[in-house]
């Protein structure tokens, strides 16, 4: 990794950290509603993994999904507007925190059902085999998902058919308030891959370089050998499961011990030592990250609320094979269009302009 790339990755980690901190604030202020699951502490996984993907690859994530969208390069303004339920949001205010999609960037979204997107990842892998391309699919999920039936079904068919999917368990030790010890008969979650004869490995998920190394091998195996991998990244979330969770099921000592291995600080040390980046430059980057988040919040606040008519849009695709007479009477079809929407360029009402 050269200096520029290292700095770009560091910048992304900072952006996620500052973005998430600001989300917590906005939630308390009542500007963000619903469920809000923060990625703070886990940044090295999304940033490390997605830095290895090609533009034409696909990925899917669990509902703790802010970090991946930012790491893939989605404009934070569109994400913040989504969180505030505004029409300028990446999903037009229909998804919220748990459902960030950016299909042109290969981001097929945050899934709100634990384990629900694993069979879908297998399906994307299947399409790659059918079309005989060399794309890969990255599928991120938490430790809680490994106990779902969907995990078993998806891993079995992926290994059975040779699908180019990398399944990434982000083991942050707790499925909501239930620790791994109380949820899984096997503590080393990556060992579950053995049940499917699947290559498997674990990695320190607080270390971006380690994540990149392990993921690099898995992605290469998927791309060239058409073999899936089960990869466990051991990580930690500093905050509760969601904003309503005070996290009383874990000790302060445990949280502090993990915060001492902070992935952002660890990577900062690396760029300082290996690329002789001065402290002042890192501090300036942090200021930039905060400014980008401020700008995103401004954009979100300026964005109009969705027009009530948009309620009926985006349910169906308008199609010549459905009788317009019957469909048009139904509210769910009223606003259907034939095309897929592409996340919008910054609209005219936005005065927010900060170069990143």
């Amino acid at each position, binding site marked *: 990794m050269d200096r520029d790339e290292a700095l770009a990755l560091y910048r992304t980690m900072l952006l996620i950290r500052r973005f998430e901190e600001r989300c917590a604030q906005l939630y308390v202020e009542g500007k963000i509603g619903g469920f809000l699951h923060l990625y703070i502490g886990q940044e090295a996984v999304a940033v490390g993994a997605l830095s290895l993907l090609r533009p034409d690859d696909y990925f899917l994530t669990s509902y703790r999904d802010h970090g991946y969208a930012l790491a893939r390069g989605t404009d934070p303004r569109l994400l913040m507007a989504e969180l505030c339920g505004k029409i300028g949001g990446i999903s037009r205010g229909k998804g919220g925190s748990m*459902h960030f999609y950016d299909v042109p960037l290969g981001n097929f*979204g945050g899934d709100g059902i634990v384990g629900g997107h694993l*069979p879908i990842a*297998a*399906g994307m892998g299947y399409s790659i085999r059918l079309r005989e391309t060399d794309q890969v699919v990255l599928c991120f999920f938490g430790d809680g998902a490994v106990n779902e039936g*969907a995990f078993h079904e998806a891993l079995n068919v992926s290994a*059975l058919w040779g699908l180019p999917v990398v399944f990434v368990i982000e083991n942050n030790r707790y499925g909501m308030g239930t620790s791994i010890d109380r949820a899984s008969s096997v503590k080393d979650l990556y060992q579950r891959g053995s049940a499917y004869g699947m290559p498997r490995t674990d990695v320190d998920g607080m270390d971006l370089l380690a994540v990149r190394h392990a993921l690099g091998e898995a992605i290469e195996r998927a791309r060239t050998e058409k073999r899936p991998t089960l990869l466990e990244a051991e990580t930690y979330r500093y905050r509760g499961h969601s904003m309503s969770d005070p996290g009383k099921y874990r000790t302060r000592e445990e949280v502090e011990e993990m915060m001492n291995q902070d992935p952002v600080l660890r990577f900062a040390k690396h760029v300082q030592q290996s690329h002789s980046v001065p402290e002042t430059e890192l501090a300036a980057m942090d200021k930039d990250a905060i400014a980008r988040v401020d700008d995103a919040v401004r954009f979100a606040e300026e964005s109009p609320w969705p027009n009530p008519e948009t309620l009926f849009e985006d349910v169906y695709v308008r199609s010549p094979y459905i009788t317009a007479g019957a469909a048009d009477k139904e509210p769910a*079809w009223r606003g259907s269009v034939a095309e897929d929407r592409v996340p919008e360029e910054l609209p005219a009402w936005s005065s927010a302009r900060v170069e990143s």
Partner: protein
Amino acid sequence: MATLTMREALNEAIGEEMRRDPTVFLIGEEVGHYQGPYKVTQGLIQEFGEWRVRDTPIAEEAIAGVAVGAAFVGMRPIAEMMTFNFSLLALDQIVNHAAKYRYMSGGQVRCPMVLRGPSGAAAQVAAQHSQAFESWFAHVPGLVVAMPSTPADAKGLLKSAIRDDNPVIFMENEVLYNLKGEVPEGDYTIPLGLGDVKRVGKDVTLVAWSRSVQRALEAADLLAANGIEAEVVDPRTLRPLDDELIFDSVRKTNRCVVIEEGWRYAGFGAEIADRVQRSCFDDLDAPILRVTAADVPMPYSKKLEKVFLPQPKQIVDAVHQVLYR
């Protein structure tokens, strides 16, 4: 016109669409080497190979989920449920994923897939294998629900379902697989959301779909012997629903009986009754009646099974009731 069974008509539709469009593929339990649990997919693996006709393990969530994922990135999968009874194991993929990703993504994603297979009662296969779930699927915005009653409809509707860009729940019926009928030659489609009058009459409107159309037609024969002319309206698609066709008929007959194989409680017939009473209130000369399955799980014994299912005799009785005879 050729005379085909519904099984053959469905097989033709799948084969023709797979020849026409390389993104169409078939996935399900026993669809390939076994030639289909009900032989609907006979011969397809020989022609298209195992990647386009994919035998799966017994894993319904994976079958549906793989179809959903492939559809998101440009394929047109046809996922077969060995029967729709097992679709309950795939319900999360259908309801939470296939039906919702377009909405949750603000219109960025589409899911052009078909989930098909037999639904409803067969013969003496008891409670877990005899269920009619169309009301469940029709309840979900984001899904299209089609239920053919004849071989010609089956072929034309399935071809539309495969070409359509939305997730289509295509519910066949095991008992109808051997039903023969005339099927137009060559390529044709029947639009989703377009109903069909299966028998013209002036005295009462019978609304029925799938296998219940046969029951309604039998009842109409019995009624005709007594000088009552029943009109049989088959919506063919439950979502979207061609309710105007039903309204037109009710405005002519002033009486309506809805027949369905599902349970009465919160069944789809209640949706039809609701729409008819709202749009045709002044035209109705009697309350809308429903003839449905009994509100219990399906029993095994053939004597009880017959009591469970809606029978032509019950339809005749209901018609007499709405005609006050």
